[in-house]
Protein backbone atom coordinates (compact mmCIF):
# COMPACT_ATOMS: atom_id res chain seq x y z
CA UNK A 1 0.00 0.00 0.00
CA UNK A 2 1.20 3.53 -0.73
CA UNK A 3 1.64 6.08 2.02
CA UNK A 4 0.05 8.88 0.01
CA UNK A 5 -1.88 8.82 -3.24
CA UNK A 6 -3.22 11.88 -4.99
CA UNK A 7 -6.00 11.40 -7.52
CA UNK A 8 -6.78 14.17 -10.01
CA UNK A 9 -5.77 16.75 -7.47
CA UNK A 10 -6.51 20.39 -8.32
CA UNK A 11 -5.98 23.40 -6.10
CA UNK A 12 -7.25 26.90 -6.76
CA UNK A 13 -6.54 30.15 -4.93
CA UNK A 14 -9.64 32.10 -5.81
CA UNK A 15 -9.51 32.11 -9.60
CA UNK A 16 -5.90 31.02 -9.81
CA UNK A 17 -5.30 27.40 -10.72
CA UNK A 18 -2.12 26.41 -8.88
CA UNK A 19 -2.12 22.59 -8.84
CA UNK A 20 -3.25 21.04 -12.07
CA UNK A 21 -4.70 17.55 -12.06
CA UNK A 22 -1.90 15.76 -10.27
CA UNK A 23 -2.12 12.01 -9.83
CA UNK A 24 0.80 10.29 -8.17
CA UNK A 25 1.78 7.72 -5.55
CA UNK A 26 4.21 8.06 -2.68
CA UNK A 27 5.40 4.65 -1.44
CA UNK A 28 6.01 3.79 2.19
CA UNK A 29 9.36 4.24 3.95
CA UNK A 30 11.11 6.27 1.31
CA UNK A 31 12.37 9.79 0.91
CA UNK A 32 10.16 11.25 -1.77
CA UNK A 33 11.38 14.59 -3.08
CA UNK A 34 9.26 17.11 -4.88
CA UNK A 35 11.38 19.54 -6.88
CA UNK A 36 10.72 22.43 -9.17
CA UNK A 37 11.44 26.13 -9.55
CA UNK A 38 10.11 28.62 -6.98
CA UNK A 39 6.44 29.36 -7.35
CA UNK A 40 5.67 26.11 -9.18
CA UNK A 41 3.24 24.93 -6.52
CA UNK A 42 5.47 22.54 -4.55
CA UNK A 43 4.64 24.03 -1.16
CA UNK A 44 0.95 24.15 -2.02
CA UNK A 45 1.02 20.48 -2.96
CA UNK A 46 2.73 19.63 0.32
CA UNK A 47 0.20 21.64 2.34
CA UNK A 48 -2.65 19.78 0.70
CA UNK A 49 -1.37 16.52 2.22
CA UNK A 50 -2.16 17.63 5.78
CA UNK A 51 -4.98 19.98 4.83
CA UNK A 52 -3.01 22.94 6.08
CA UNK A 53 -4.24 24.69 2.93
CA UNK A 54 -7.55 25.13 4.67
CA UNK A 55 -6.00 27.93 6.72
CA UNK A 56 -6.11 29.92 3.52
CA UNK A 57 -9.72 30.86 3.07
CA UNK A 58 -9.46 31.36 -0.68
CA UNK A 59 -7.99 27.88 -1.32
CA UNK A 60 -10.25 25.29 -2.98
CA UNK A 61 -9.35 21.64 -3.56
CA UNK A 62 -10.87 19.11 -5.97
CA UNK A 63 -9.90 15.48 -6.47
CA UNK A 64 -8.80 13.18 -3.70
CA UNK A 65 -5.80 12.41 -1.50
CA UNK A 66 -5.43 9.07 0.27
CA UNK A 67 -3.32 8.37 3.31
CA UNK A 68 -2.65 4.64 3.55
CA UNK A 69 -5.70 4.02 1.41
CA UNK A 70 -8.10 6.25 3.32
CA UNK A 71 -9.29 9.60 1.94
CA UNK A 72 -7.94 12.43 4.06
CA UNK A 73 -11.09 14.42 3.42
CA UNK A 74 -13.05 11.83 5.39
CA UNK A 75 -10.78 12.35 8.37
CA UNK A 76 -10.90 14.94 11.07
CA UNK A 77 -8.11 17.36 10.02
CA UNK A 78 -6.60 17.19 13.50
CA UNK A 79 -6.38 13.42 13.42
CA UNK A 80 -4.82 13.71 9.99
CA UNK A 81 -2.24 16.21 11.18
CA UNK A 82 -1.29 13.97 14.08
CA UNK A 83 -0.45 11.29 11.53
CA UNK A 84 1.36 13.69 9.19
CA UNK A 85 4.06 15.84 10.79
CA UNK A 86 5.44 18.92 9.13
CA UNK A 87 8.67 20.94 9.13
CA UNK A 88 8.81 24.37 7.59
CA UNK A 89 11.19 26.41 5.46
CA UNK A 90 12.28 28.84 8.17
CA UNK A 91 13.08 27.14 11.46
CA UNK A 92 10.10 28.18 13.57
CA UNK A 93 10.34 26.85 17.11
CA UNK A 94 7.79 28.70 19.24
CA UNK A 95 9.79 31.66 20.53
CA UNK A 96 8.07 31.83 23.90
CA UNK A 97 8.84 28.22 24.84
CA UNK A 98 11.94 26.37 26.05
CA UNK A 99 13.65 23.63 24.04
CA UNK A 100 11.89 21.02 26.14
CA UNK A 101 8.47 22.63 25.89
CA UNK A 102 8.73 23.00 22.12
CA UNK A 103 8.94 19.24 21.81
CA UNK A 104 6.49 18.57 24.62
CA UNK A 105 3.71 20.88 23.46
CA UNK A 106 2.41 18.48 20.79
CA UNK A 107 2.12 15.38 22.98
CA UNK A 108 0.72 17.49 25.83
CA UNK A 109 -2.06 19.13 23.82
CA UNK A 110 -2.90 15.92 21.98
CA UNK A 111 -2.88 13.99 25.29
CA UNK A 112 -0.43 11.38 24.04
CA UNK A 113 1.15 10.83 27.45
CA UNK A 114 -0.14 9.97 30.89
CA UNK A 115 2.63 11.19 33.15
CA UNK A 116 5.58 13.52 33.43
CA UNK A 117 7.99 10.57 33.24
CA UNK A 118 6.42 9.37 30.03
CA UNK A 119 6.62 12.88 28.59
CA UNK A 120 10.28 13.19 29.58
CA UNK A 121 10.98 9.92 27.83
CA UNK A 122 9.09 10.96 24.73
CA UNK A 123 10.91 14.29 24.53
CA UNK A 124 14.25 12.55 24.92
CA UNK A 125 13.30 10.00 22.28
CA UNK A 126 12.23 12.70 19.80
CA UNK A 127 15.36 14.77 20.38
CA UNK A 128 17.51 11.68 19.90
CA UNK A 129 15.67 10.80 16.71
CA UNK A 130 16.31 14.31 15.50
CA UNK A 131 20.01 13.94 16.39
CA UNK A 132 19.83 16.91 18.73
CA UNK A 133 19.80 15.28 22.14
CA UNK A 134 23.54 15.38 22.78
CA UNK A 135 23.71 19.07 21.96
CA UNK A 136 20.81 20.19 24.17
CA UNK A 137 20.42 17.63 26.96
CA UNK A 138 22.09 19.94 29.49
CA UNK A 139 20.01 23.00 28.64
CA UNK A 140 16.53 21.77 27.94
CA UNK A 141 15.09 24.78 29.72
CA UNK A 142 16.86 27.37 27.61
CA UNK A 143 14.64 29.31 25.24
CA UNK A 144 14.55 27.67 21.83
CA UNK A 145 15.66 30.91 20.21
CA UNK A 146 19.13 30.45 21.74
CA UNK A 147 19.88 27.56 19.40
CA UNK A 148 21.63 27.99 16.07
CA UNK A 149 19.57 27.90 12.87
CA UNK A 150 20.46 24.29 12.14
CA UNK A 151 19.73 23.20 15.70
CA UNK A 152 16.39 25.06 15.60
CA UNK A 153 15.45 23.17 12.46
CA UNK A 154 16.30 19.83 14.05
CA UNK A 155 14.26 20.91 17.06
CA UNK A 156 11.34 21.46 14.69
CA UNK A 157 11.87 17.94 13.37
CA UNK A 158 11.82 16.65 16.95
CA UNK A 159 8.65 18.65 17.57
CA UNK A 160 7.01 16.99 14.58
CA UNK A 161 8.27 13.51 15.53
CA UNK A 162 7.01 13.78 19.11
CA UNK A 163 3.41 13.41 17.99
CA UNK A 164 4.41 10.05 16.45
CA UNK A 165 3.42 10.72 12.87
CA UNK A 166 3.56 8.17 10.08
CA UNK A 167 4.50 10.66 7.40
CA UNK A 168 6.85 13.62 7.69
CA UNK A 169 6.44 16.58 5.34
CA UNK A 170 9.39 18.93 4.94
CA UNK A 171 9.06 22.22 3.07
CA UNK A 172 12.56 23.23 1.92
CA UNK A 173 13.88 22.61 5.43
CA UNK A 174 17.48 23.48 4.65
CA UNK A 175 17.08 26.53 2.43
CA UNK A 176 17.82 28.84 5.35
CA UNK A 177 20.75 26.80 6.67
CA UNK A 178 24.50 26.56 6.13
CA UNK A 179 26.06 23.53 4.35
CA UNK A 180 27.16 21.77 7.55
CA UNK A 181 23.71 21.95 9.11
CA UNK A 182 22.22 20.92 5.77
CA UNK A 183 24.39 17.80 5.63
CA UNK A 184 23.34 16.87 9.18
CA UNK A 185 19.68 17.14 8.32
CA UNK A 186 20.07 15.21 5.09
CA UNK A 187 21.74 12.25 6.80
CA UNK A 188 19.04 12.44 9.45
CA UNK A 189 16.35 12.13 6.79
CA UNK A 190 17.97 9.01 5.37
CA UNK A 191 18.05 7.55 8.88
CA UNK A 192 14.41 8.50 9.53
CA UNK A 193 12.98 6.87 6.44
CA UNK A 194 13.38 3.48 8.14
CA UNK A 195 10.42 4.33 10.35
CA UNK A 196 8.66 7.11 8.43
CA UNK A 197 7.64 8.11 4.98
CA UNK A 198 9.33 11.37 4.16
CA UNK A 199 8.12 13.91 1.65
CA UNK A 200 10.72 16.58 0.99
CA UNK A 201 10.07 19.69 -1.05
CA UNK A 202 13.20 21.29 -2.42
CA UNK A 203 14.29 23.57 -5.20
CA UNK A 204 17.81 22.25 -4.83
CA UNK A 205 18.40 19.47 -7.38
CA UNK A 206 21.55 18.21 -5.74
CA UNK A 207 19.62 17.68 -2.57
CA UNK A 208 16.96 15.71 -4.39
CA UNK A 209 19.68 13.61 -6.00
CA UNK A 210 21.46 13.06 -2.67
CA UNK A 211 18.58 11.98 -0.47
CA UNK A 212 15.61 11.12 -2.67
CA UNK A 213 14.57 7.56 -3.48
CA UNK A 214 11.85 8.94 -5.68
CA UNK A 215 11.55 12.36 -7.25
CA UNK A 216 8.66 14.26 -8.74
CA UNK A 217 9.27 17.28 -10.94
CA UNK A 218 6.60 19.99 -10.85
CA UNK A 219 6.37 22.93 -13.21
CA UNK A 220 3.62 25.58 -13.15
CA UNK A 221 1.41 23.32 -11.07
CA UNK A 222 1.73 20.35 -13.42
CA UNK A 223 3.38 17.06 -12.62
CA UNK A 224 5.90 16.77 -15.43
CA UNK A 225 7.55 13.56 -14.39
CA UNK A 226 7.81 11.21 -11.44
CA UNK A 227 9.97 8.15 -10.88
CA UNK A 228 12.99 6.72 -9.13
CA UNK A 229 15.50 9.46 -8.50
CA UNK A 230 18.27 7.77 -10.47
CA UNK A 231 16.01 7.48 -13.49
CA UNK A 232 14.86 11.10 -13.28
CA UNK A 233 18.41 12.41 -13.11
CA UNK A 234 20.13 9.99 -15.47
CA UNK A 235 17.45 9.31 -17.97
CA UNK A 236 14.65 11.89 -17.90
CA UNK A 237 11.81 11.14 -20.24
CA UNK A 238 10.54 14.70 -20.58
CA UNK A 239 12.51 17.44 -22.29
CA UNK A 240 11.52 20.00 -19.60
CA UNK A 241 12.90 17.78 -16.83
CA UNK A 242 16.14 17.48 -18.69
CA UNK A 243 16.32 21.24 -19.20
CA UNK A 244 15.72 21.82 -15.51
CA UNK A 245 18.33 19.38 -14.19
CA UNK A 246 20.92 20.53 -16.68
CA UNK A 247 20.32 24.03 -15.43
CA UNK A 248 18.89 25.57 -18.55
CA UNK A 249 16.13 27.19 -16.52
CA UNK A 250 14.85 27.40 -12.99
Amino acid at each position, binding site marked *: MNAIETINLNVYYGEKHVIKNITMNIPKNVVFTIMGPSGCGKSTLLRSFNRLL*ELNETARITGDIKLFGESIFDM*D*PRELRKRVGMVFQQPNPFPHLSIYDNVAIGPKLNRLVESKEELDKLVEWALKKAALWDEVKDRLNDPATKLSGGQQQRLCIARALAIKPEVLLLDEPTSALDPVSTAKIESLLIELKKSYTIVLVTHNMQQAARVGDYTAFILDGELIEVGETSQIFENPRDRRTEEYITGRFG
Partner: protein
Amino acid sequence: MNFMDRFKISLLPFSALVFGIFALMLLVYFTNSAEIFSREGIKIYTTNIWLASEEPEKEFYGVLAAIYGSVFTSVIAILIALPISIAYSIFVVDFAPKKIKEWLTIATDIMAGLPTIIYGIWGVFVLVPFLKTYVMEPLYNNLSFIPLFSYPPVSGYSYLSAGVLLGIMVTPFATAVIREAYKMVPFTYREAIFALGATKYEATKVIIGYIKPAIIAGMILAFGRAIGETVAVSLVIGNTFNISPSLFAPGYTISSLIANQFGNAFIYEYMVSALFAAGLSLFFIGLAINLLAFYFLRRWEESGSRL
Protein backbone atom coordinates in the same frame (compact mmCIF):
# COMPACT_ATOMS: atom_id res chain seq x y z
CA MET B 1 -14.21 21.96 8.98
CA ASN B 2 -16.92 21.60 11.58
CA PHE B 3 -14.62 21.91 14.59
CA MET B 4 -13.28 25.20 13.23
CA ASP B 5 -16.78 26.52 12.98
CA ARG B 6 -17.47 25.48 16.53
CA PHE B 7 -14.56 27.65 17.64
CA LYS B 8 -15.90 30.57 15.64
CA ILE B 9 -19.35 30.11 17.09
CA SER B 10 -18.04 30.01 20.64
CA LEU B 11 -16.25 33.34 20.13
CA LEU B 12 -19.18 34.89 18.36
CA PRO B 13 -21.24 35.96 21.37
CA PHE B 14 -18.40 38.14 22.62
CA SER B 15 -18.02 40.00 19.35
CA ALA B 16 -21.77 40.23 19.13
CA LEU B 17 -21.79 41.76 22.60
CA VAL B 18 -19.60 44.62 21.41
CA PHE B 19 -22.04 45.28 18.60
CA GLY B 20 -24.94 44.85 20.98
CA ILE B 21 -23.60 47.52 23.34
CA PHE B 22 -23.05 49.89 20.46
CA ALA B 23 -26.51 49.26 19.01
CA LEU B 24 -28.12 49.65 22.42
CA MET B 25 -26.30 52.93 22.86
CA LEU B 26 -27.64 54.22 19.57
CA LEU B 27 -31.11 53.03 20.52
CA VAL B 28 -30.97 54.76 23.90
CA TYR B 29 -29.94 58.03 22.26
CA PHE B 30 -32.68 57.83 19.64
CA THR B 31 -35.52 56.88 21.95
CA ASN B 32 -34.55 59.44 24.57
CA SER B 33 -34.24 62.29 22.13
CA ALA B 34 -37.45 61.38 20.26
CA GLU B 35 -39.54 63.43 22.69
CA ILE B 36 -37.75 66.70 22.05
CA PHE B 37 -37.70 66.11 18.29
CA SER B 38 -41.45 65.60 18.18
CA ARG B 39 -41.93 68.72 20.30
CA GLU B 40 -39.46 71.10 18.68
CA GLY B 41 -38.34 69.45 15.48
CA ILE B 42 -35.05 70.63 14.05
CA LYS B 43 -35.20 73.79 16.20
CA ILE B 44 -33.38 71.90 18.94
CA TYR B 45 -30.27 72.26 16.77
CA THR B 46 -30.92 75.58 15.07
CA THR B 47 -31.82 77.90 17.92
CA ASN B 48 -29.94 79.30 20.87
CA ILE B 49 -32.55 79.24 23.60
CA TRP B 50 -32.41 77.56 26.98
CA LEU B 51 -35.68 77.96 28.81
CA ALA B 52 -35.85 75.63 31.76
CA SER B 53 -39.12 76.00 33.59
CA GLU B 54 -41.16 74.32 36.27
CA GLU B 55 -44.08 74.55 33.86
CA PRO B 56 -43.43 72.07 31.04
CA GLU B 57 -45.32 74.08 28.40
CA LYS B 58 -42.89 77.00 28.82
CA GLU B 59 -39.79 74.84 28.38
CA PHE B 60 -37.81 75.30 25.20
CA TYR B 61 -34.33 74.16 24.35
CA GLY B 62 -31.98 74.92 21.47
CA VAL B 63 -28.37 73.82 21.63
CA LEU B 64 -26.94 75.81 18.73
CA ALA B 65 -24.58 77.68 21.05
CA ALA B 66 -23.06 74.39 22.20
CA ILE B 67 -22.62 73.09 18.67
CA TYR B 68 -21.05 76.40 17.69
CA GLY B 69 -18.72 76.30 20.69
CA SER B 70 -17.69 72.71 20.00
CA VAL B 71 -16.74 73.52 16.42
CA PHE B 72 -15.11 76.86 17.30
CA THR B 73 -12.89 75.45 20.05
CA SER B 74 -11.97 72.36 18.03
CA VAL B 75 -10.96 74.49 15.05
CA ILE B 76 -8.71 76.59 17.31
CA ALA B 77 -7.27 73.34 18.66
CA ILE B 78 -6.30 71.93 15.28
CA LEU B 79 -4.96 75.27 14.06
CA ILE B 80 -2.55 75.01 16.97
CA ALA B 81 -1.91 71.29 16.58
CA LEU B 82 -1.22 71.36 12.83
CA PRO B 83 2.03 73.32 12.68
CA ILE B 84 3.30 72.01 15.99
CA SER B 85 2.74 68.35 15.24
CA ILE B 86 4.32 68.60 11.79
CA ALA B 87 7.34 70.44 13.16
CA TYR B 88 7.70 68.01 16.04
CA SER B 89 7.55 65.02 13.69
CA ILE B 90 10.25 66.53 11.49
CA PHE B 91 12.35 67.31 14.52
CA VAL B 92 12.08 63.82 16.02
CA VAL B 93 12.72 61.97 12.76
CA ASP B 94 15.31 64.19 11.05
CA PHE B 95 17.02 66.45 13.58
CA ALA B 96 17.03 64.91 17.02
CA PRO B 97 20.16 63.00 18.07
CA LYS B 98 19.55 59.25 18.24
CA LYS B 99 19.86 59.17 22.00
CA ILE B 100 16.95 61.49 22.69
CA LYS B 101 14.66 60.44 19.82
CA GLU B 102 13.10 57.72 21.95
CA TRP B 103 12.58 60.09 24.88
CA LEU B 104 10.95 62.70 22.68
CA THR B 105 8.48 60.06 21.51
CA ILE B 106 7.86 58.90 25.06
CA ALA B 107 7.18 62.49 26.08
CA THR B 108 4.35 62.91 23.58
CA ASP B 109 3.03 59.46 24.44
CA ILE B 110 2.80 60.55 28.07
CA MET B 111 0.97 63.70 26.99
CA ALA B 112 -1.47 61.59 25.00
CA GLY B 113 -2.20 59.32 27.93
CA LEU B 114 -2.19 61.81 30.82
CA PRO B 115 -5.57 61.90 32.59
CA THR B 116 -7.54 64.77 31.11
CA ILE B 117 -8.49 66.08 34.54
CA ILE B 118 -4.81 66.96 35.03
CA TYR B 119 -4.99 69.15 31.93
CA GLY B 120 -8.15 70.53 33.53
CA ILE B 121 -6.58 71.58 36.82
CA TRP B 122 -3.54 72.98 35.01
CA GLY B 123 -5.86 74.82 32.63
CA VAL B 124 -7.87 76.44 35.42
CA PHE B 125 -5.02 77.48 37.70
CA VAL B 126 -2.16 78.06 35.24
CA LEU B 127 -3.19 78.40 31.60
CA VAL B 128 -6.27 80.61 31.96
CA PRO B 129 -4.58 83.24 34.19
CA PHE B 130 -1.57 83.24 31.85
CA LEU B 131 -3.63 83.70 28.70
CA LYS B 132 -5.78 86.34 30.36
CA THR B 133 -2.85 88.47 31.47
CA TYR B 134 -0.41 87.99 28.60
CA VAL B 135 -2.62 87.38 25.58
CA MET B 136 -6.21 88.45 26.00
CA GLU B 137 -5.80 91.72 27.90
CA PRO B 138 -3.08 93.20 25.64
CA LEU B 139 -4.98 92.21 22.51
CA TYR B 140 -8.28 93.54 23.84
CA ASN B 141 -6.75 96.79 25.04
CA ASN B 142 -5.11 97.50 21.70
CA LEU B 143 -7.10 95.72 19.03
CA SER B 144 -10.66 95.42 20.31
CA PHE B 145 -12.00 96.90 17.07
CA ILE B 146 -11.27 93.52 15.44
CA PRO B 147 -14.33 91.28 16.10
CA LEU B 148 -12.09 88.35 17.04
CA PHE B 149 -10.75 90.36 20.01
CA SER B 150 -13.86 92.39 20.79
CA TYR B 151 -15.07 90.73 23.99
CA PRO B 152 -13.70 92.02 27.30
CA PRO B 153 -11.73 89.19 28.95
CA VAL B 154 -13.27 89.47 32.37
CA SER B 155 -12.72 85.97 33.73
CA GLY B 156 -10.42 84.47 31.12
CA TYR B 157 -12.76 81.51 30.73
CA SER B 158 -13.38 81.57 27.00
CA TYR B 159 -13.30 79.86 23.61
CA LEU B 160 -9.63 80.77 23.37
CA SER B 161 -8.73 79.13 26.69
CA ALA B 162 -10.62 75.98 25.77
CA GLY B 163 -9.18 75.94 22.25
CA VAL B 164 -5.58 76.39 23.42
CA LEU B 165 -5.96 73.72 26.11
CA LEU B 166 -7.52 71.36 23.57
CA GLY B 167 -4.74 72.17 21.12
CA ILE B 168 -2.16 71.12 23.69
CA MET B 169 -4.13 67.97 24.48
CA VAL B 170 -4.62 66.79 20.89
CA THR B 171 -1.19 67.65 19.49
CA PRO B 172 0.25 64.30 20.66
CA PHE B 173 -2.46 62.36 18.81
CA ALA B 174 -1.83 64.22 15.57
CA THR B 175 1.91 63.89 16.11
CA ALA B 176 1.72 60.11 16.47
CA VAL B 177 -0.01 59.71 13.11
CA ILE B 178 2.18 62.21 11.25
CA ARG B 179 5.44 61.02 12.79
CA GLU B 180 4.79 57.39 11.85
CA ALA B 181 3.95 58.36 8.28
CA TYR B 182 6.96 60.66 8.01
CA LYS B 183 9.25 57.93 9.32
CA MET B 184 7.89 55.40 6.86
CA VAL B 185 8.76 57.42 3.78
CA PRO B 186 11.26 55.17 1.99
CA PHE B 187 14.85 56.28 2.35
CA THR B 188 15.34 56.16 -1.39
CA TYR B 189 13.02 59.17 -1.77
CA ARG B 190 15.09 61.24 0.61
CA GLU B 191 18.24 60.20 -1.21
CA ALA B 192 16.68 61.08 -4.54
CA ILE B 193 15.58 64.54 -3.43
CA PHE B 194 18.91 65.41 -1.84
CA ALA B 195 20.69 64.02 -4.90
CA LEU B 196 18.88 66.69 -6.89
CA GLY B 197 20.61 69.30 -4.77
CA ALA B 198 17.68 70.20 -2.57
CA THR B 199 18.16 72.01 0.72
CA LYS B 200 16.72 70.47 3.88
CA TYR B 201 13.77 72.81 3.59
CA GLU B 202 13.02 71.84 0.01
CA ALA B 203 13.44 68.13 0.65
CA THR B 204 11.16 68.27 3.68
CA LYS B 205 8.55 70.18 1.71
CA VAL B 206 8.47 67.41 -0.89
CA ILE B 207 8.18 64.66 1.71
CA ILE B 208 5.48 66.51 3.63
CA GLY B 209 3.55 66.79 0.39
CA TYR B 210 3.93 63.09 -0.09
CA ILE B 211 2.41 62.22 3.31
CA LYS B 212 -0.48 64.67 2.98
CA PRO B 213 -3.24 62.06 3.41
CA ALA B 214 -1.67 61.02 6.72
CA ILE B 215 -1.51 64.65 7.85
CA ILE B 216 -5.16 65.14 6.98
CA ALA B 217 -6.06 61.95 8.86
CA GLY B 218 -4.06 63.11 11.88
CA MET B 219 -5.86 66.45 11.89
CA ILE B 220 -9.28 64.83 11.60
CA LEU B 221 -8.52 62.46 14.46
CA ALA B 222 -7.30 65.39 16.53
CA PHE B 223 -10.50 67.27 15.72
CA GLY B 224 -12.50 64.24 16.85
CA ARG B 225 -10.66 64.07 20.15
CA ALA B 226 -11.11 67.80 20.69
CA ILE B 227 -14.82 67.81 20.00
CA GLY B 228 -15.42 64.90 22.37
CA GLU B 229 -13.33 66.13 25.28
CA THR B 230 -15.43 67.01 28.31
CA VAL B 231 -14.01 67.82 31.72
CA ALA B 232 -10.96 69.86 30.80
CA VAL B 233 -13.08 72.00 28.49
CA SER B 234 -16.00 72.43 30.84
CA LEU B 235 -13.58 73.78 33.46
CA VAL B 236 -12.19 76.56 31.24
CA ILE B 237 -14.86 77.54 28.71
CA GLY B 238 -17.10 79.50 31.06
CA ASN B 239 -20.30 77.51 30.48
CA THR B 240 -22.45 80.31 29.05
CA PHE B 241 -25.09 80.17 26.31
CA ASN B 242 -23.44 82.45 23.88
CA ILE B 243 -22.67 82.67 20.19
CA SER B 244 -19.90 85.18 19.74
CA PRO B 245 -17.22 85.60 17.12
CA SER B 246 -14.83 86.80 19.79
CA LEU B 247 -12.13 84.44 21.03
CA PHE B 248 -12.36 85.93 24.51
CA ALA B 249 -16.07 85.29 25.03
CA PRO B 250 -17.24 82.45 27.28
CA GLY B 251 -19.36 79.73 25.71
CA TYR B 252 -20.46 76.12 25.85
CA THR B 253 -19.57 72.95 24.02
CA ILE B 254 -21.90 69.98 23.53
CA SER B 255 -20.02 67.84 25.99
CA SER B 256 -19.60 70.58 28.59
CA LEU B 257 -23.30 71.36 28.27
CA ILE B 258 -24.13 67.76 29.06
CA ALA B 259 -21.62 67.63 31.92
CA ASN B 260 -23.05 70.81 33.42
CA GLN B 261 -26.76 70.38 32.97
CA PHE B 262 -27.46 66.67 33.12
CA GLY B 263 -27.13 66.44 36.89
CA ASN B 264 -30.21 68.57 37.48
CA ALA B 265 -32.02 67.87 34.21
CA PHE B 266 -34.39 65.43 35.83
CA ILE B 267 -36.24 68.22 37.59
CA TYR B 268 -37.62 69.31 34.24
CA GLU B 269 -39.92 67.59 31.82
CA TYR B 270 -37.98 67.94 28.58
CA MET B 271 -34.39 68.81 29.48
CA VAL B 272 -33.17 65.20 29.62
CA SER B 273 -34.48 64.62 26.13
CA ALA B 274 -32.88 67.85 24.91
CA LEU B 275 -29.52 66.77 26.29
CA PHE B 276 -29.82 63.37 24.66
CA ALA B 277 -30.51 65.15 21.38
CA ALA B 278 -27.34 67.19 21.95
CA GLY B 279 -25.53 63.92 22.66
CA LEU B 280 -26.93 62.41 19.49
CA SER B 281 -25.45 65.24 17.42
CA LEU B 282 -22.08 64.61 19.05
CA PHE B 283 -22.55 60.89 18.37
CA PHE B 284 -22.94 61.50 14.66
CA ILE B 285 -20.26 64.16 14.41
CA GLY B 286 -17.91 61.70 16.11
CA LEU B 287 -18.91 58.87 13.79
CA ALA B 288 -18.53 60.96 10.65
CA ILE B 289 -15.14 62.29 11.73
CA ASN B 290 -13.79 58.84 12.52
CA LEU B 291 -14.95 57.32 9.26
CA LEU B 292 -13.41 60.22 7.39
CA ALA B 293 -10.10 59.80 9.22
CA PHE B 294 -10.04 56.07 8.48
CA TYR B 295 -10.71 56.83 4.84
CA PHE B 296 -7.66 59.08 4.66
CA LEU B 297 -5.52 56.68 6.64
CA ARG B 298 -6.41 53.87 4.28
CA ARG B 299 -5.61 56.08 1.32
CA TRP B 300 -2.23 56.76 2.82
CA GLU B 301 -1.60 53.08 3.52
CA GLU B 302 -2.60 52.15 0.01
CA SER B 303 -0.32 54.75 -1.51
CA GLY B 304 2.42 53.20 0.63
CA SER B 305 1.74 49.65 -0.47
CA ARG B 306 1.92 50.60 -4.12
CA LEU B 307 5.59 51.51 -3.78
